[in-house]
C-alpha cells in the first residue's frame, strides 16, 4: 500500500478576478521509500499542491478531494489530529528559508521546537538534539551556530537549517518545496548531495517540488509533470528522461540548457479561465482539432507511464 495517495485533489481560492483553480483534479501516489518529483514551471500550482497536503493554506482556500496518508484522509482530520502529524510524520521543508525562519528566534531554538513538541523533550535536551541536527546537515561549529539568528546565516546554511528542522523528528514523508531555490550552483550541488544522503539514511519518502529538472533527475524515482493546475505526465525517472510521452514534457526537456535551451513558445494559460480542451493545446506543435475542444484524460502510455494527451487515446 502506498504511504500517501492523493485522489482528485482540488485547491481553489477566490480573488478579485475570479476563482483561481491552482490545483485541479490531481491524483498521485507515493510509496514507502519512494521519491516523487513534482516538476513544472512557475505558477503551475506546485506550491499550492504542496501546502494543501498539510492544510497549510490560508483559510480562504477551498480544498477538496482525498489525501490519504497511512489510510487516514488528512482533509477530514481535526486540526488537533493534524497537528500531531505535521512535523512528526510529515515534515515540510519550505521554500525561501530566509522568510520561513523566524527572525527573532535563534536557529537552535527553531530546530529544537519539533523535539519539544513531538518527543516531549525538555528545553535543554531538545537543544542538544538541535545541535546534533545542525551537525548532521554539516554546519560547522554547530554549538555556536545554534545560538545565532537566521540573518547571521548564509543562504546555503539557512537551507541546511531548514532541512535539519524538517528531518528533526524522523518523518516518514518529507515535502520539500524548491529546496535549492535562490542558492548558487555550487551550494545547490552541496545541498543536493546532502539531501541524497539524508534520504538514504532516513528511509523516508519524499515529495520534491521543483522547476529544476536536473535536481529531479538527481533525487527522484518518479516524476509528475504539472501544468496549469493539473498533472500532464506521470512516469518513472528513466522513462521520463529517455522517452517523455507528453508533448509538454518533451518541450520542457528541450528547454534545458544541456538539451538545446529551446524555449516553449507562448505563455502558460490563466488558472482562472483555462482553455476548454487540452490546456497545453495553444502552445503545442502536435495539436489537432479535438485538442481544442475535448479535455484529455490521463492515459496509459505503458506500464508506469501516463500522459494527458489525445495521442495515446
Amino acid at each position: 500500500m502506498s504511504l500517501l495517495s492523493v485522489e482528485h485533489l482540488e485547491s481553489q481560492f477566490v480573488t478579485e478576478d475570479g476563482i483561481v483553480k491552482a490545483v485541479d483534479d490531481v491524483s498521485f501516489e507515493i510509496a514507502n521509500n519512494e521519491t516523487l518529483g513534482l516538476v513544472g514551471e512557475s505558477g503551475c500550482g506546485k506550491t499550492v499542491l504542496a501546502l494543501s497536503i498539510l492544510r497549510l493554506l490560508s483559510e480562504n482556500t477551498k480544498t477538496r478531494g482525498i489525501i490519504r496518508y497511512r489510510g487516514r484522509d488528512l482533509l477530514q482530520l481535526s486540526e488537533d489530529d493534524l497537528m500531531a502529524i505535521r512535523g512528526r510524520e510529515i515534515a515540510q521543508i519550505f521554500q525561501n528559508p530566509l522568510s520561513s525562519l523566524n527572525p527573532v528566534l535563534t536557529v537552535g531554538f527553531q530546530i529544537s521546537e519539533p523535539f519539544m513538541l513531538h518527543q516531549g523533550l525538555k528545553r535543554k535536551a531538545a537543544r542538544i538534539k538541535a545541535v546534533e541536527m545542525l551537525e548532521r546537515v554539516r554546519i560547522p561549529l554547530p554549538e555556536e551556530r545554534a545560538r545565532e539568528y537566521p540573518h547571521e546565516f548564509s543562504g546555503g546554511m539557512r537551507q541546511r537549517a531548514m532541512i535539519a528542522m524538517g528531518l528533526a523528528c524522523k518523518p516518514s514523508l518529507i515535502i520539500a518545496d524548491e529546496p535549492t531555490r535562490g542558492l548558487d550552483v555550487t551550494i545547490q550541488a552541496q545541498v543536493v548531495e546532502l539531501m541524497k544522503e539524508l534520504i538514504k539514511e532516513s528511509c523516508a519518502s519524499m515529495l520534491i517540488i521543483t522547476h529544476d529538472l536536473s535536481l529531479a533527475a538527481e533525487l527522484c524515482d518518479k516524476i509528475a509533470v504539472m501544468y496549469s493546475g493539473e498533472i500532464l505526465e506521470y512516469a518513472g525517472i528513466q522513462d521520463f528522461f529517455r522517452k517523455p510521452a507528453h508533448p509538454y514534457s518533451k518541450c520542457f526537456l528541450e528547454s534545458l540548457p544541456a538539451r538545446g535551451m529551446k524555449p516553449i513558445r507562448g505563455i502558460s494559460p490563466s488558472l482562472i479561465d483555462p482553455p476548454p480542451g487540452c490546456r497545453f493545446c495553444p502552445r503545442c506543435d502536435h495539436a489537432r482539432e479535438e485538442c481544442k475542444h475535448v479535455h484529455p484524460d490521463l492515459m496509459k502510455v505503458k506500464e508506469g507511464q501516463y500522459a494527458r494527451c489525445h495521442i495515446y487515446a
Partner: protein
Amino acid sequence: MFFNFVKRLGIFCLVLIISTTLVFFMLHSLPGEKAVVMAKYIFLGSVELNPSNEEIQLVKDKFDLDRSLISQYISWAGAALHGDLGRSYKSNDPVSQEILIRLPATITLAFVSVLMSLFIGIPLGILAAVKQNSITDYICSSTAVLGISMPNFWLALLLMLVFSLKLNLTPTIGYGGLSHLILPAVTLGTASSAVIMRLTRSSMLEVMRQDYIRAARGKGLSRKSIFITHALRNALIPVITIIGLEFGHLLGGTVIIETIFAWPGIGRLLIDSISARDIPVIQGCVLFITLMYMLLNFAIDAVYPLIDPRIGGN
C-alpha cells in the same frame, strides 16, 4: 557603534539648539508688548488693569528687555550651558526648581497612563487579531476608533460629570492621593490604549501572514504557541516605537488635561508661563520637553536589539 553614538549625540545637541532658538524668537514675536504683560502679572496680579509707565520701565530695566533679541538669547544660552536656566520673572524662583517641583506630578501621570495603555492596548490588540472578524474583534476595533476620535477634553469633562459629580467616587480636580490620579490617567490612557490596540492588532495580523508562521504551523505547533512564541515578539516591534513616542508626549506634560484637572505638572507650568510671558520658564520647559523626547528615543533604541536581533548587535 561608537561612531553611531557620537553622530546621535551631535543630532541631539542640534535639535536642542534649534528648538530653543525657535521658541525664543517665537515668544518675542507674540502679540502684546512683553513688558506690559509682565508688569501686569508682577505688580497688579491681574490682566484687567493697566500698569503705569514707571512700572513698565521698571520691568524693562530689571529683565534687560531693552537689549537686542540676539544678545538676550546669547546670554540665556550661555547661562543654560552652565546649567543655569535663569529665574522665573513671576515667582523669582530658579527655573530648574520650578520644573523639578512639577516633575513628580507629570511623571506619575505619564507613567500610569502609559502603563494603562500597555495593559489594555496590547492584550486587546492581540485578542482582536486572534479572533479576527469575530464579534470580539468588531467590538474591540470599534471601541478603539471611539477612543481615538473622542477629544480628550470632552472625555475628561464626561468622566468628571459621571464619576465625580453623579457617582461621587473620585475628586473632580486637584493633586494628591491615588484617587486624584484616576480620572486624568483614564482620560489620557484611553486614547493611548486605543492607538496601541489598533497598532498591535494590525501588526499581529501582518505578522501572521508571514512565511515563518506557516513554517511554524508546518512543524505542528498549536495556534496558541505560534501566537506566543512566533508572532508576538515580531508584532511588538512597531508597538514599542509608538509606546516610546506616547510616553515622550506625556512626559512633556499634557497641557489640556493638566489644565482641566488642575494637575500641577509641566504642562500647566508651560501654559501659565506663556500667558505671563515668563520667558525663562517657557524656555526651560521647552528644553526639558525636548530632552525628554530625545532621552526616550535613546531608550527605545536601546530596547530594540533586545527584541529584534537584526537591529544593532554586532
